């Protein structure tokens, strides 16, 4: 019988500390004469695990799932055979609540679905509601909305890059990206007073014009941001660990990506040059000079490259928007849509009536329906609104890009290792507030 030499078992076989405070080395198992009985070594033959599949549960509270996502994985060894995602832990019924709210009252709800992209959601909802009302917004408002959308794209991609880098074990880019994101938040705070839940738009305009000197702050950001981005790029793009952990993972061919309804950087990384801003433009995006970033391999690494490039393109758009920002009113001059200034509402009879009607009844669109899509950082975000002529929508449907991108995860993780599931899941850039709504 072989005598064991394993330290753990020797330590376990002692009874503990003696009266003098020193560890007692008396074996627990002794024979009649007080001699230690050698411990039996475990059989050296490993059990045959072939063919046995294991079920493993990730989430809903796992930090690497970026929210309350739950993945049930069937593993063969360390390889994923099947993945069953579960969503809905954050479901709050936004669409149902929207049916009980006036159009302007819904805008704060749009902050909270994709909360990394609040200004973008506000703009998207306002665009949809304005289509439904038949309103044409002012030129200054159009450019301000472009600025809001591109700032929020940068903000969202920065969070994506930072958290994904943390998932793969790189902590430094996280600090840099969150530092830059803080600058964007400061700009937004100066504009509307809020950082995360901006509620930046109203039907027919914005909540406020940008304050004096705000544009200078934006110019400073436009100058400084590419430098930080270049640092992060130096840190990651040719980093052997980063490349090794992202290349060739979660590949979707272009046909698959289209068929699965992917959108945004997920679709473009697969080599499909589809961007709502180019193909179904809004807010005069066709008049800006910028390029669509397209990948070729459709893997996690290409999604990273596409998002990096998109941030630089956003800076290009921002620069042009700042240069062309026209003077003039921000809101449409229509008292049936836009609230009068408070001073007028308390001093002029007519303004008071408009104020009362707008607050108590809300603006009423004609009977109709529309689907308005914008390119959010996650993909094609659309609002489908149906009106029956009352001041509240009959149906307010959010087309959630993260939800539909996430639905392809079983296809993407199949055949990959368990640790790659984290990388693939991170590359989808999900925000559970939007997935569950």
């Amino acid at each position, binding site marked *: 019988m072989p005598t064991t030499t394993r330290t753990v078992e020797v330590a376990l076989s002692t009874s503990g500390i003696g009266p003098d405070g020193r560890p007692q080395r008396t074996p627990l198992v002794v024979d009649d004469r007080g001699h230690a009985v050698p411990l039996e070594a475990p059989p050296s033959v490993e059990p045959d695990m072939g063919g046995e*599949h294991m*079920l493993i549960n990730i989430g809903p509270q796992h930090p690497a799932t970026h929210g309350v996502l739950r993945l*049930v994985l*069937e593993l063969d060894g360390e390889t994923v055979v099947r993945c*069953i995602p*579960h969503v*809905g832990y954050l479901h709050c019924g936004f*669409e*149902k*609540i929207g049916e*009980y709210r006036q159009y302007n009252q819904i805008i704060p709800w749009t902050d909270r679905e994709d909360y990394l992209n609040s200004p973008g959601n506000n703009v998207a909802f306002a665009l949809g509601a304005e*289509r439904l009302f*038949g309103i*044409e917004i002012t030129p200054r408002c159009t450019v301000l909305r472009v600025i809001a959308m591109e700032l929020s794209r940068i903000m969202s991609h920065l969070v994506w890059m930072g958290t994904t880098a943390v998932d793969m074990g790189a902590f430094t880019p996280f600090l840099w990206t969150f530092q830059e994101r803080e600058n964007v938040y400061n700009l937004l705070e100066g504009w509307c007073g809020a950082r995360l839940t901006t509620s930046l738009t109203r039907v027919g305009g914005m909540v406020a014009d940008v304050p004096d000197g705000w544009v200078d702050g934006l110019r400073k950001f436009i100058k400084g941001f590419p430098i930080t981005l270049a640092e992060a790029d130096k840190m990651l793009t040719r980093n052997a660990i980063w490349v090794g952990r992202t290349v060739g993972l979660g*590949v979707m*061919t*272009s*046909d*698959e990506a*289209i*068929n*699965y*309804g992917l959108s945004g950087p997920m679709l473009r990384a697969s*080599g*499909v*040059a*589809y*961007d709502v801003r*180019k*193909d*179904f*433009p*809004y*807010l*005069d995006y*066709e008049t800006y000079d910028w390029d669509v970033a*397209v990948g*070729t391999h*459709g*893997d996690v690494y290409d999604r990273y490259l596409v998002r990096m490039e998109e941030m630089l393109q956003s800076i290009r758009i921002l620069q042009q928007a700042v240069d062309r920002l026209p003077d003039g009113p921000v809101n449409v001059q229509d008292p049936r849509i836009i609230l009068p200034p408070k001073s007028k509402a308390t001093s002029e009879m007519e303004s008071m009536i408009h104020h009362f009607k707008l607050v108590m009844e809300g603006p009423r669109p004609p009977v*109709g*329906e*529309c*689907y308005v*899509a914008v390119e959010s950082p996650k993909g*094609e975000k*659309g609002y*489908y609104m*149906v009106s*029956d002529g*009352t001041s509240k929508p*009959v*149906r307010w*449907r959010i*087309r959630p890009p993260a*939800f539909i991108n996430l*639905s*392809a995860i079983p*296809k993407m993780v199949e055949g990959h290792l368990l640790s790659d599931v984290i990388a693939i899941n991170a590359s989808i850039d999900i925000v559970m507030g939007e997935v*569950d709504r």
Partner: protein
Amino acid sequence: MTPTSQIQIAGSAAPHDAPRTPTQIPHRGGTPNPSAEALRARFGDAVSRVDVVWGETTVVVDAARVRDMVAWLHDDAGERYDYLVDVTAVEFRDLEQPLEVVWHLRSLPYRRFLRLKALLPKGAPLEVPSVWPVHKGADWMERECFDMFGVRFEGHPDLRRILMWEQYKEGFPLRKDFPLRGRFSRAEQLRQALAANPEARYSMEEISVVEAFSDLPDEMRQRLASGERTGE
């Protein structure tokens, strides 16, 4: 697993001037999407109406033929609606009005947008064919529509609740007869939440993953299927 090297460019099948931001869109009327006429020519009676509202073409179609239409739109060289944007439903406040199931389709090569709509009269079972065989992306959209409205999608591989939990008994939240605060009282909701068995959130399909379920004795299987706690 072989990546495609060819870059697909939206709008490449119909080269024309770059699209522009639409302005001054009329409320009703305007040029309908040419695909609406093509659908009518191909499917005849199954297309009952074509509307243009706010510049978007809506084709009201026979619910039973939806999958054929979507498949034809997907495959026909002159249409190529390869991108399914959304599947959802609309119920109106007037409960007499039929429930509408809406498909939003995009043709990336031709840069077109089309809305298909099927009207499901009240009183009849809410059933439409699933477009999952054509568009894999329809999977979760149809599950959500079933979850929220109770519309059954015939031919969907795994039609079960997605946002609400599987034992949810209050009905379909986005239906107009469903009150905003839910059907059950707060006390009842709390009681059910406390009594809920989290392990029962594994669907029967998942339990069968380890192929243990079918090996269990009959009586235990019935108890598990009814959501009883197993007790470790």
